[in-house]
């Protein structure tokens, strides 16, 4: 039930939203994955669409593409994209060595075992380096989790979580002090403390009382009644 070739060429995103159940777009979606990798962009919908097409026709499944999709999904953490992708990948494919490694890496990240994660990632450098921006994305996730949890985080903890030490860490902290509202403090016993910006998760006072907030458009529904 595919459509006839159009005069105007659709972008991939348009294809995915307008005509996703069509085996003819499979190659385009694969190219789009490679494009996401090289241009450091990301589209969950397009990648899920491709994984579905692989599910419908397993003979066309490409392990290399699946690996790239999974790495991109890891980089999207804390979003559950990695699990979403795994739900669509048949078990025999998940037994592939590269994918098994990625599952282990995901497990470490999901359970906040950052030290083990960075160790394992170092061992599999060749697998991960095909996707530029991987390290930075994971570091962003790490900082996100720290920001959820800590008002003041000790320097060694930060170092282990984002896998940066020494002078590089100094520069990293400097950058965030200047741009992200971090503040340095002295902790107990001359250790360095990084004070993270306040948000509703690490400062309970800021918790938005969304209990009775309602979107205005819902209220408009009873205007006819009130008048």
């Amino acid at each position, binding site marked *: 039930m595919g459509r006839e070739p159009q005069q105007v060429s659709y972008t991939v995103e348009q294809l995915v939203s307008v005509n996703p159940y069509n085996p003819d777009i499979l190659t385009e979606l694969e190219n789009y994955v490679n494009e996401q990798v090289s241009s450091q962009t990301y589209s969950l919908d397009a990648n899920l669409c491709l994984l579905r097409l692989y599910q419908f026709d397993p003979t066309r499944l490409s392990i290399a593409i699946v690996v790239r999709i999974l790495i991109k999904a890891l980089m999207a953490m*804390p979003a559950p994209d990695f699990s979403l992708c795994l739900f669509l990948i048949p078990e025999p494919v998940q037994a592939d060595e590269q994918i098994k490694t990625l599952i282990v890496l995901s497990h470490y990240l999901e359970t906040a075992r950052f030290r083990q994660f960075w160790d394992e990632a170092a061992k599999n450098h060749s697998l991960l380096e095909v996707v530029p921006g991987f390290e930075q994305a994971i570091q962003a996730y790490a900082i996100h989790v720290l920001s959820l949890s800590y008002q003041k985080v*000790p320097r060694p903890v930060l170092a282990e979580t984002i896998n940066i030490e020494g002078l590089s860490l100094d520069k990293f902290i400097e950058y965030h002090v200047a741009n992200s509202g971090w503040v340095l403090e002295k902790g107990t016993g001359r250790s360095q403390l990084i004070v993270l910006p306040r948000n509703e998760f690490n400062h309970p006072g800021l918790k938005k009382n969304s209990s009775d907030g309602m979107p205005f458009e819902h209220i408009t529904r009873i205007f006819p009644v009130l008048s």
Partner: protein
Amino acid sequence: MANSYDYDDASFDSRYARPPSSGQGGGAAAELSYDPNFVPDSVKTFVVHLYRHIREKNVYEIHQMYEGSFQRLSDRMFRENPWPSVEAIAPYVDNDHVFCLLYREMWFRHVYARLAPTGQQRVESWDNYCSLFGVVLHGVVSMQLPNQWLWDMVDEFVYQFQSYCQYRAKLKNKTEEELQLLRQYDQAWNVYGVLNYLQALVEKSAIVDILEREKDGLEQFTATDGYDYEGGTSNVLKMLGYYSMIGLLRVHCLLGDYHTGLKCLGPIDISQQGVYMIVIGSHISIIYHYGFANLMLRRYVEAIREFNKILLYILKYKQYHQKSPQYDQILKKNEQMYALLAICLSLCPQSNIIEENVNIQLRDKYNEKMTKMLRYDDEAYAVYDELFTYACPKFITPSAPVLEESLINYNQDAYRLQLKLFLYEVKQQQSLSGLRSFLKLYSAISIGKLAAYMEVDESTMRTILLAYKHKMHSVDSDGKIIPNADIDFYISEDIIHVVESKPTKHYGDYFLRQVLKFEEMISELDRVKLD
């Protein structure tokens, strides 16, 4: 792995109460006495009247015949046999093409519900749906049909697709004849076709636009239950489009694609009254799949909230559906949702978010199991396994079978994958339950002390704390972070400060719903003319 999962058309998933005498064995004996060309008088009357009512657009009468007469005749005369063939009744209805398609749809549905369909019948049913939807999509249908019927069409379409995927994945005991059929009709119930039909119905009906315009007050849709009382234009395409969104949610859940499933449901706002509530089957189907998808996406509070609402609704209103043919299905889904609720509450305990009556039912059924699940030992995983297996959708492998190699049964593969990944997620949350029970006891505690109590080293303690934060904050479809836990904390250097969140009662929401409900009641009463 629980072995009670074997999907079988004849087993618990049948939508009607199966009379004890019928079953696969009835096939051979019944065939001898079944003459597809014999049309009993009652059937003659039935089709003639139904045809007339459809032509006269008498939706109420159509509904009575569809829900009532059809069931009664099936019960009385067609317990073990199919209805007369469409060729036999066609002369009584002017050989009307569309009526024949509708009749055949009901014919096949009856076979699926009460008998066991053969491979040939499955393929023919697919052809019938293609023709029926083809006619509707061409926009040439002018009739108005009851919503119940239109919902049943979409529901049955997805159900037969799911059933066929299971059927063709069980290759081990197939006869050569059956295998030949699979080879020959390899396009029947292909997943592209199914999805594209549903998508086409959504698009052609412009239902998304209609719902959008309704928000601006430019369209009457929900207010008239989807019917067009004044103009008399057909509601068929519109409603099929609407229900197809739910159909798409369901198919995507069966494939394991929860994200896209929820996206397909996007245009329907389940926090408001809507057309989806008119037919109780569609209401339950939406919430069941919505809740399940959110559970797999770790949005526990959202799932709990929706399950709570629907379970309360069923508690209040199920008595009115006791006579309906959907009653068994309603009860079944009810039980499954209690199981899912038990799972959600074990993974993400909440206080005061469940209605009292629902809570009583839940504790009745699952108190022991929930206690077990919280312990996170081996027995706990067995309980998670059991409940998940009982309550999950019947996942499918959508790809066509490879008929050349050794023939095995692979119909459980999809389910096994989902179960495995689910249990994997449960395992990752293992230490969180212990942490939570300790956090309940303190307002502030040092990491060192807590580590000692939990018998781990400090570094592991920090890891567990971060993991708790990560798992208990889900990411919604807009990328926003949503907290799920009822017990939260923040860490300042070495000290954990515990924060207990207040349960939120949505008074505003409640009042809004009541105001609208009473307004509706009042205007209905106003319409009553006393003569």
